[in-house]
């Protein structure tokens, strides 16, 4: 349960989970998919971050992991934090039900647009937030409401994007968001690298002034550089090759994130042999 008090105190009640791996509904049943339990047996995945869209529920892989008493985090895939109506009783009831199964250490998920209009078939997508102070305030209200109604910490994550709108930079937006919601966050290093590239910045630009004590969890993921009619962007494909920009951010953040509790290596569609080096390098950086 989320404890009362400011984040600076609450964060000390969160468990240190170590290195983990992510999954979402049906990921494990696809050909060539990663088996988190196999990775766990090799000592590389201490916890499972379960991506949940309540309309799909939990698959057998996630249920089996939780039934074995292994740690989890709950990564939402279906809530627009800036829309108060999105925290409806039906959705909250299903979040609580899934949380009873998973017993997650916390909730987390991209602070962006997960669905356009009501939750429905064909409505799901993911867009980054509009980088304005107003939008940060709206999302902060949603984070606080969700934290209160589910009783778990809610850690917003910086989403991916091929472009971004608004008058703040991404790190400035998340500094305002985490302060307004008095919460920690998930810093997705691959997503941040995408933003920095789009903004024409060096990978670690802006991190010196960023409140790294808010970073509770990191994501490390592979990506592929793409060229679309001369427009360069990174496809966040969770593949086996983590780009140098992403590693540079991981290295910089790990050194300063005093409240870091968990790192997820997002690699659910690769074989074990491909991803073990990613876990080894991440562990080395966090040692």
């Amino acid at each position, binding site marked *: 349960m989320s404890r009362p008090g400011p984040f600076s105190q609450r964060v000390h009640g969160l468990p240190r989970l170590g290195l983990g791996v992510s999954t979402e509904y049906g990921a494990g049943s696809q050909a060539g998919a990663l088996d988190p339990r196999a990775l766990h047996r090799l000592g590389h995945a201490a916890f499972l971050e379960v991506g949940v869209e309540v309309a799909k529920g939990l698959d057998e892989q996630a249920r089996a992991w939780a039934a074995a008493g292994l740690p989890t985090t709950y990564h939402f895939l279906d809530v627009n934090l800036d829309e108060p109506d999105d925290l409806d009783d039906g959705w909250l009831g299903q979040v609580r039900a899934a949380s009873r199964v998973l017993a997650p250490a916390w909730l987390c998920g991209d602070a962006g647009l997960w669905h*356009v209009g009501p939750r*429905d*078939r064909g409505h799901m997508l993911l867009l980054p937030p*509009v980088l304005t102070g*107003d939008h940060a305030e*709206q999302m902060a209200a949603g984070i606080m409401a969700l934290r209160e109604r589910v009783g778990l910490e809610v850690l917003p994550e910086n989403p991916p994007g*091929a472009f971004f709108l*608004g008058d703040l930079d991404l790190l400035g937006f998340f500094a305002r968001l985490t302060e307004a919601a008095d919460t920690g966050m998930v810093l997705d290093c691959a997503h941040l690298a995408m933003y920095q590239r789009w903004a024409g910045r060096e990978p670690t630009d802006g991190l010196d002034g960023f409140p790294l004590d808010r970073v509770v969890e990191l994501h490390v993921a592979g990506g592929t550089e793409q060229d679309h*009619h001369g427009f360069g*962007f990174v496809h966040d494909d969770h593949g086996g090759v983590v780009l140098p920009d992403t590693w540079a951010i991981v290295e910089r953040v790990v050194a300063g994130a005093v409240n870091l509790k968990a790192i997820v290596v997002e690699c659910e569609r690769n074989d074990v042999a491909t991803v073990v080096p990613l876990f080894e390098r991440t562990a080395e950086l966090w040692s």
Partner: protein
Amino acid sequence: MSQALHRATVRCLYDPALVARLRAGERLPELSEQEHGWLLAVDPRAWTTDPYRRSRSLTALLDEFPVAAAVRGVRACDGFFSSQAFHRCIQDRGRLALAFGTWLGPVATLELAIARSRRPGPVAGLRLAPGVAAVTVPEGFLAWFVAARAEVLPLETLVGGARPSAAPPTEGDEHLIIEPGVDGPQVGGGSAALNAFLDFCASGTTREAALAEARRLGCEPGDDESLLAELVGDGLLVGGAEGG
């Protein structure tokens, strides 16, 4: 409002024509000049980095409207994402499936009713049970629909350009009732009076108002009560037990 800008962003991602119109000077009334400036600052190529966005969404829609889409022609259905119906749906936070079904026109009446029955709204009082809908189509439509569906499915056949061999009927009235079944919605026969009564209850009503409507539609006093009990017992209506 950030939400309005988000919705405009989605419209631009689906419809390069809108991006072109904005770049040519068109303005969306729901956005400020500053928000327009942010949209216009996006590299035009960035809007189309996902070439399969429309086809993925269309595939989801075809699943619910295979017959009407086949009549329209699957390739032509891609035009939905540039239509006013699409843009209005996104900006008004509507449901894409219902907007698509409406865009397809009268031939989609049955599939649209099924799609609506899958998405019951927050209706209170005496109302249709989840998954139940009443719909009136041209005479002979259900038989044509069943045959056409067999001709155009599975999805690979539909996407390959299959069309129904016969044109849909357009004359007369056939009253149908949709109910949830184990393997999906079941469509059976209704009647003008029964369908009118179920339509009356669709948006939620009171027991007294429903009884009055039943009498207006021809029920004898006394029979109205038994009709209501029968429809509740058959699972077509729910709620309203509190009366008044």
